[in-house]
C-alpha cells in the first residue's frame, strides 16, 4: 500500500459534506478520519494528531471556533493546521477564525480544486515548518556541542598551562624551524639562570650555552621524522657559567598554527656527580684488593713458594681465571663509563687507518693462532680524524669476538672500503651467527646471544656496548649482519671529514 500523502481529520456535522470531503481526499491519496461532533474531533486529534484538520464552523454543542480554541490550548495539538469550512460570507467570522489560530478559510459551496490546493498548500507549509524546526534543533545541538568542545579545549589548555607552569621539570617551547624560544617555565629559567626576557626571541644556538649544535640539530631532525625524542643527554652552560647535564625529551606540538618543539628537561647533574663519585670509589676499592689477590695468585703460580699437587694447581688456575675475569669486568665497566662521560676522554688526532687496521691484526694474532683461526687483514690507507686508541680497542674487540665464535680452521677477515663520506670497516667471521631478534640488542650492556657466553668465552658482556659508544662518539655507525650457522659481519662506518664544532 502506498504511504498516504497526509493524515487529515475532517470535523463536520453534515454527513453529506463529510462524505464528499472524505471521498475527495481519499481518492487523492490522503488518509481521512471523519467525525461529526466537535468534542469527538478533539479527542481524535489528541489520540493521534493528524497532519491537518478541516473544521466546520457551524456545529451544534461545540462549534468550530470552540473546537479550534480547545485544540490550540493543548500542546499536543496546537501546531496542527486548522482550515475552517463555512457557508458564512461574513468578514468578521474570517477574522475570528484567524484570530483563534486557523490557518485558512474555505467557504461553502466549495470548489474541489480549491479545497485540494489549500490542503496541499498547508500541508507543504506544515512540512516545511517541521523541517525548519528540525534544522533549528540540529543547529542548536551543534552550537551546544561546539560550546562543550570549546570548554574542553579551554580546560585542556588550562591543564597544559598548569602542567607547564608547575612542572618540576624545566620546560621550554621553541619554534621547530629556527629553535626560537617562545616560552619557558620557572624551573627552566632557574636551571639556565636566564630571565624570560633574555630568552624570548633568541634561538637555542644563539645563546652562549656551549650546547652541542650537531647533536641538537640531529635531535630536531629525529623529532621531525619520528615525532618524539626521548631522554637524550645534553650538557650546557648556565648564564653564570656552571656546566649542567640534562636528559632532554622533545615533543612536537602546534601553537597558533606554528610547529613547535616542547623541550622537557630532566636535570641529572647531581645524579651524574654521584655516579662519577661512585665509579671512582668502586674503581679504587675494588682494584686495590684485586691487585693483592692477583699478585698473591701469581706468586703462588711461580712455584717458588712451594709446589702444589695437580688438584692444587687446578684450584689455583680457577682462582686466577676468575680474578682475571673480574678485573676485565671492572675495566670494561670503567671504560664504558669513561667513554659515556663524553668528549673529554676522546683524544682525536689525524691517524692512518691502515696502521690501525694492521695494529689490530697484530694485537689479535696470538689469540687467533691459539684458536687455530687465520686472520685476513686488509689495510686501507686513508687519513682519519679519530682517537687511535679507541678505534684500536673497537677493532680488537670485534676481532676477539669473531675469533671466539669461530670454529678452529676458520677465517676472520678485517677489511675496509671507502665511500665519499665514510670509511667502512668490516669484521667478518664464519661462526655460528646471531639470531635475528638479537641483532640489535647485542650492542646493549650484558646482552650476549647466549647467557652462558660470558662464562664460556671469557667475555664481560660489555665489549660491544663499548664499541658502540666509541663509534657513536666519533659520529659513526655500527651494526651487524648475520646468517645463523653461516657467520656474522660487523660493520663500522666512520666519517672521513668530521666537522669540528
Amino acid at each position: 500500500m502506498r504511504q498516504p500523502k497526509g493524515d487529515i481529520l475532517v470535523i463536520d456535522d453534515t454527513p453529506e459534506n463529510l462524505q464528499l470531503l472524505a471521498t475527495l481526499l481519499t481518492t487523492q491519496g490522503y488518509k481521512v478520519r471523519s467525525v461529526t461532533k466537535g468534542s469527538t474531533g478533539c479527542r481524535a486529534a489528541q489520540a493521534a494528531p493528524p497532519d491537518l484538520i478541516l473544521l466546520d464552523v457551524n456545529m451544534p454543542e461545540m462549534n468550530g471556533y470552540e473546537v479550534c480554541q480547545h485544540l490550540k490550548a493543548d500542546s499536543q495539538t496546537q501546531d496542527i493546521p486548522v482550515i475552517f469550512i463555512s457557508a458564512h460570507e461574513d468578514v468578521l467570522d474570517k477574522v475570528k477564525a484567524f484570530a483563534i489560530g486557523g490557518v485558512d478559510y474555505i467557504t461553502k459551496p466549495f470548489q474541489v480544486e480549491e479545497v485540494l490546493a489549500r490542503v496541499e498548500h498547508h500541508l507543504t507549509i506544515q512540512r516545511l515548518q517541521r523541517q525548519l524546526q528540525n534544522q533549528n534543533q540540529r543547529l542548536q545541538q551543534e552550537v551546544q556541542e561546539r560550546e562543550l568542545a570549546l570548554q574542553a579545549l579551554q580546560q585542556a589548555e588550562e591543564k597544559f598551562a598548569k602542567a607547564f607552569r608547575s612542572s618540576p621539570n624545566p620546560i621550554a617551547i621553541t619554534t621547530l624551524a629556527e629553535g626560537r624560544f617562545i616560552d619557558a617555565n620557572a624551573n627552566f629559567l632557574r636551571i639556565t639562570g636566564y630571565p624570560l626576557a633574555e630568552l624570548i626571541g633568541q634561538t637555542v644556538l644563539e645563546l652562549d650555552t656551549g650546547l652541542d649544535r650537531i647533536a641538537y640539530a640531529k635531535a630536531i631532525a629525529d623529532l621531525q621524522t619520528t615525532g618524539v625524542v626521548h631522554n637524550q643527554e645534553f650538557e650546557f652552560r648556565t648564564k653564570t657559567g656552571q656546566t649542567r647535564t640534562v636528559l632532554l625529551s622533545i615533543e612536537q606540538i602546534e601553537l597558533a598554527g606554528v610547529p613547535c618543539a616542547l623541550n622537557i628537561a630532566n636535570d641529572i647533574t647531581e645524579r651524574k656527580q654521584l655516579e662519577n663519585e661512585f665509579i671512582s670509589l668502586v674503581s679504587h676499592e675494588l682494584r686495590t684488593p684485586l691487585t693483592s689477590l692477583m699478585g698473591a695468585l701469581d706468586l703462588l703460580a711461580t712455584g717458588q713458594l712451594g709446589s702444589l699437587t695437580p688438584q692444587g694447581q687446578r684450584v689455583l688456575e680457577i682462582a686466577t681465571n676468575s680474578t682475571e675475569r673480574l678485573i676485565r669486568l671492572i675495566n670494561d665497566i670503567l671504560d664504558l663509563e669513561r667513554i659515556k662521560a663524553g668528549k673529554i676522554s676522546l683524544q682525536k688526532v689525524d691517524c692512518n687507518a691502515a696502521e690501525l687496521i694492521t695494529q689490530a691484526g697484530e694485537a689479535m694474532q696470538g689469540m687467533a693462532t691459539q684458536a687455530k683461526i687465520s686472520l685476513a687483514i686488509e689495510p686501507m690507507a686513508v687519513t682519519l680524524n679519530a682517537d687511535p686508541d679507541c678505534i684500536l680497542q673497537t677493532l680488537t674487540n670485534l676481532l676477539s669476538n669473531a675469533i671466539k665464535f669461530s670454529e678452529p680452521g676458520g677465517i676472520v677477515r678485517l677489511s675496509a672500503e671507502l665511500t665519499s663520506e665514510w670509511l667502512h670497516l668490516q669484521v667478518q667471521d664464519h661462526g655460528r651467527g646471531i639470531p635475528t631478534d638479537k641483532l640489535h640488542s647485542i650492542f646493549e650492556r650484558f646482552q650476549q646471544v647466549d647467557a652462558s657466553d660470558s662464562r664460556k668465552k671469557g667475555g664481560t658482556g660489555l665489549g660491544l656496548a663499548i664499541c658502540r659508544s666509541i663509534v657513536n662518539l666519533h659520529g659513526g655507525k655500527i651494526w651487524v649482519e648475520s646468517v645463523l650457522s653461516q657467520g656474522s659481519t660487523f660493520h663500522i662506518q666512520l666519517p672521513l671529514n668530521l666537522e669540528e664544532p
Partner: protein
Amino acid sequence: MTKCILIIDDEEDIRDITQLGLEMSMGWRVLTASSGQKGIAIAAAEQPDAILLDVMMPDMDGRMTFAGLQANPQTQNIPVILVTAKIQASDQESFADLAVAGILTKPYRAMNVAEQICKILAWTA
C-alpha cells in the same frame, strides 16, 4: 743489574705482594714504608733507585709526599712512579702537572711490576 725499590703504600697487603713480586721476579732489594713521612725518611737515608708511591693514602697523600720528596735535595732526583687505582681521564690530567716518571695503574700483576718499572724508567733489565 740489581736495583733497590722503595714502596710507599698504606696497605700492608699491597706492600707485601709487590715486594714479593719484585724480589721473586728480579731479585731486587725492596724497602717499604706505610706512610708518606716514613717514606721520605727512608728515601733520604737509603737512596733507592726508584720509588713506587701510592696516590690514595690517609693524612699525607701521594701528591703531598711527592712534594716532600721534591723539596728535599737528597731525594729530589729519585724517579717516582705513581700508583693509582683510578684511570679516568680527569685523574690522569690531574697528575699531568706532577713531574713524576710515570703512572702505574692498579690492578697490576705482581710478577710483572718489575718489567713495567723497567719500561717506564727505560732500564735494561
